[in-house]
């Protein structure tokens, strides 16, 4: 009915927080890694604001495509109150229930997947740094 509004709300917060982190962030750290065994390359680490952009892209992209599905099913309309379920109290209650269950679960799962992505990336960075220390 309007479950996509919860990920949209999170996407707005993520965009604002991401911009604020980007402004405060120092220049990306530089590190040396070994490619194909011996070849040494100087690379820049992925900044936290770049990682926040992954979450932002998943939330905005997913919400936009989900919003389209709601338009397709006639649940979102281009006139006030824009959500057909908001027209009467019974449907509005059902819509709020769906937002608090399906919508919240969507936002939580997308965030959980992002946290796994950040965890894996941090692990890969630490491993690359460790390899560098051993070879030096």
């Amino acid at each position, binding site marked *: 009915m309007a479950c996509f509004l919860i990920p949209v709300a999170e996407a707005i917060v993520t965009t604002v927080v991401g911009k604020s982190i980007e402004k405060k962030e120092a220049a990306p750290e530089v590190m040396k890694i070994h490619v194909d065994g011996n070849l040494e390359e100087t690379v820049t680490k992925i900044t936290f604001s770049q990682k926040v952009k992954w979450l932002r*892209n998943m939330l905005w992209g997913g919400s936009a495509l*989900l919003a389209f599905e709601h338009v397709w099913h006639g649940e979102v309309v281009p006139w006030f109150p824009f959500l057909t379920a908001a027209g009467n109290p019974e449907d509005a209650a059902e819509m709020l229930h769906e937002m608090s269950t399906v919508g919240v679960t969507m936002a939580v799962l*997308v965030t959980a997947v992002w946290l796994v992505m950040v965890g894996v990336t941090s692990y890969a960075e630490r491993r690359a740094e460790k390899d560098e220390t051993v070879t030096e």
Partner: protein
Amino acid sequence: MTLLTTVFAAVIATVVWYKTAPKSNMKLGTLSLMYWGASIMWFVDAIFEYAELKAEYFTPAPADMLNDLFLGLSVVALGLIIWVAVLLISDPKGVVKGVLFKKAN
């Protein structure tokens, strides 16, 4: 069907991104993240629907399946349109800028 279509789009976009990364600046990462975000959201939707319908969830009416497939393909097309718009606006290769502002001889 919508979930399946989006998952296939996400996998294809990710494989193409992997093949061209890190040299490519075609914003394929944005496209794949967009499809993955939608896939996760539809997956949650599918879980809640399954909890309600149980086994009936896996035996949809042919007309519903066709409508869902049509929706899925439309979603993939919309994703591609958003990606093209993001690509042209951010213009990482400077192509749009180059076309709009040609160097004076």
